């Protein structure tokens, strides 16, 4: 196959948003967690649980909506486990998060095998169709990029705007930011850090679960063992890249999605290149971002520090 720069670019533009969505949702949720001072490294596991839950529910009921709802619920449940360990029992958040990742990783695979056995051909479900906004989606490039997406994308835009407003223009948002900076001060000022941290964590779990569901219900249409392939960790990295600002995290996720599609496109365009090499790209780019940006990052001061109310 020939190599046409123009077609590569248009493929990247058309495909970046869907490919970005799982990381975008998970990163946005993780961002809220971290602003409240909780590092949730279990995102990867929670996303995998979202994948399998959405897949099973959709397979059983035929309802994509129910699939999303159930995946969000399971995401909240798993982030609640992380909360019990790291907020209530004050365990090390890295250890607890890693445990959540392992559980989600293993359990999602087990559930699939339990339901369908070891089959050579993957079980397929229907995926969510794109909603094209009439007329606007016909515009060149921009039309494809912005107005030809699945409804989840529009919801995500509203969501990020909403989170931005919540964090910087409401008192509960200020309180949450305070909890992430210094829970002792928050407590002194009449804010319950425990409640805020649980709230943020559950919200983050909801989004991670939905992000996982997006992979099965919108992109792939089937389940595969370890199918998130590290996107949950990319989400954690994107928060750092975005310096805990919702819109920067959003842009970071789109860039990640673009690089991901670029690798998929080049894989077909340049079959002579080893695919393992190309597969490495999105992650290498993420690592590169962190090295460049991370140095000057200014995380919430109480991030990943357990809060002991004490006396």
């Amino acid at each position, binding site marked *: 196959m020939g190599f046409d720069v123009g077609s590569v670019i248009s493929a990247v533009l058309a495909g970046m948003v869907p490919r970005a969505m799982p990381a975008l949702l998970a990163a946005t949720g993780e961002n809220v967690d971290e602003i409240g001072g909780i590092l949730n490294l279990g995102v990867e596991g929670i996303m995998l649980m979202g994948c399998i839950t959405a897949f099973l529910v959709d397979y059983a009921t035929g309802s994509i909506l129910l699939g999303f709802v159930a995946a969000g619920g399971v995401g909240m449940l798993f982030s609640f486990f992380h909360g019990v360990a790291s907020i209530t029992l004050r365990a090390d958040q890295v250890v607890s998060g890693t445990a959540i990742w392992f559980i989600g990783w293993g359990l999602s695979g087990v559930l699939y095998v339990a339901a369908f056995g070891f089959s050579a051909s993957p079980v397929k479900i229907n995926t969510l169709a794109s909603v094209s906004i009439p007329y606007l989606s016909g515009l060149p490039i921009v039309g494809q990029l912005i107005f030809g997406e699945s409804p989840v994308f529009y919801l995500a835009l509203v969501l990020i705007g909403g989170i931005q407003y919540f964090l910087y223009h*409401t008192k509960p948002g*200020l309180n949450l930011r*305070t909890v992430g*900076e210094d829970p*002792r001060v928050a407590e*002194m000022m*009449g804010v319950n850090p425990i409640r805020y941290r649980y709230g943020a964590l559950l919200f983050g779990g909801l989004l991670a679960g939905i992000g996982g569901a997006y992979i099965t219900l919108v992109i792939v249409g089937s389940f595969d063992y370890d199918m998130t392939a590290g996107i949950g960790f990319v989400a954690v990295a994107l928060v750092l890249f975005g310096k805990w600002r919702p819109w920067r995290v959003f842009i970071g996720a789109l860039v990640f999605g673009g690089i991901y599609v670029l690798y998929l496109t080049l894989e077909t365009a340049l079959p002579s290149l080893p695919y393992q090499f190309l597969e490495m790209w999105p992650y290498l780019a993420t690592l590169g971002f962190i090295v460049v940006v991370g140095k000057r990052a200014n995380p919430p*001061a109480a991030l990943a520090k357990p809060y002991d109310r004490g*006396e």
Partner: protein
Amino acid sequence: MAAEPVVRMQGIVKRFGPVVANDRVDFELLPGEIHALLGENGAGKTTLMNVLYGVYRPDEGRISVGGSEVSFRSSTDAQRLGVGMVHQHFSLIPVFTVAENMVIGLRDGHRRLEISKVKADIARTARESNLNVDPGKVVGQLSIGEQQRVEILKLLYRGAAVLILDEPTSALTPQEALDLFSTLKTLRERGKSVVIITHKLYEALSIADRVTVLRKGRVTLSSIRKGLDEEALTEAMIGRRIESKGFERTTIAGQGSMRVENLVVQSQGGREAVSGASMELRAGEILGIAGVAGNGQKELIECIFGLIRARKGRIVLDGLDITSYSIRKRLEAGLCYIPQERKTRAVAIDMSLMFNSIMHDHWHEPYVRREMLEESSIRKLTKGIISKFNVVTPSENSKAGSLSGGNLQKFIVGREMSRTMKYLLAVNPTSGLDVGAADEVRKTLVDHRNQGKGVLLVSEDLDELLSMCDELIVMYRGKVSNPIPESAFDKLKIGAMMLGSGQEQTAGSTVKAGS
């Protein structure tokens, strides 16, 4: 006075395990008064006020605020009834603006955060109470004095009628302290009641209307200020009179000096913390470095000791350039260091005093022979430190972390003094110590000087510096002033230099400030 007290605490008992921090304490606060709560460190002052503020719950006793009995479960409860407290560690978020800090956790029925309206409200409250604060500034960029104003303003904004300030002047320059006192007087005129927790006698005598003294958890004196003097307060605080004032200083012209030339040091954040500092510490001299915390003193000392690499400049010890030396070689060259962070940097708290005593000597005889520890000589060293420097501890096998702050510091200072060394770097060596231990530490440092050796002393306590140093340098934003000789010490002028005014040089009046 006939007025009904706004706060009445009766028979307050607060225990922490076996320690009784407050033992049947009675305390009354009248409307429109400034009340000094005086006592040494560990006397139970802060505990008592934390009980009033709802941080601790008393084991026994009753508290009434505004005439009715209360039982606060948290500081939020106390705030609701108009009791506010400024702790020594401020309850501020440094990355937030002043306005944002004011409204954290505030419940006024509105979920929306209308920051411009908040700013206007704050500006009004600030004007009324004569507190100069810009509500749009980010708190972390404000000086300690300004941050304290933000804390006070926050309490007023949230409706406090009773303000408790814990050691409010400990981190302030003399000017800032004077400003604070005039603010407190304004608040008193407006009918607010103020408690200042302090261990400084002159503060109690200069600003308070009434004074309550605590010693070992009990009230030893409570009276209106009129008629009180330093002696009466000292006796109530310590239970004895302090014998000597000042230090015995014999001048031995020491040999050699430690010179720092054009030193440039970057802080961890990459900021230039020390920009071209030069100084000379002569043997037989105490050279003081005054300055508000965070002006580069920490980085300067850490660079001299070798914890941070110098960007530019040289450090010369008796003619020997040690700029590129490792810490061990610096130790061997005769340098020593007493860091401010006792429990995290000076000792390993879970190890015994014995092993802590050779922290700076762990590689050579007689403590180590053929890579084996010589327990008997280490034990002898440790016992020597304990007895010579009055360290109160069950034995040399006790963990360093089990010692009280004062005893631990005496041990640390003693350890360094027992080494063969010539130049000592000390950062806030008496901070947090009670009067007795602080005195012993100071005396030890002066003794060291009297033996013809040098001390580079960084301290936030200007009185301490003025009473001990032969020469003084002021550090401000990474720059050092020219050395000020003892004959030209002027407390107010040095205080002004700590705030950045008159970077040039001292001249003119030479009033020696008392301590």
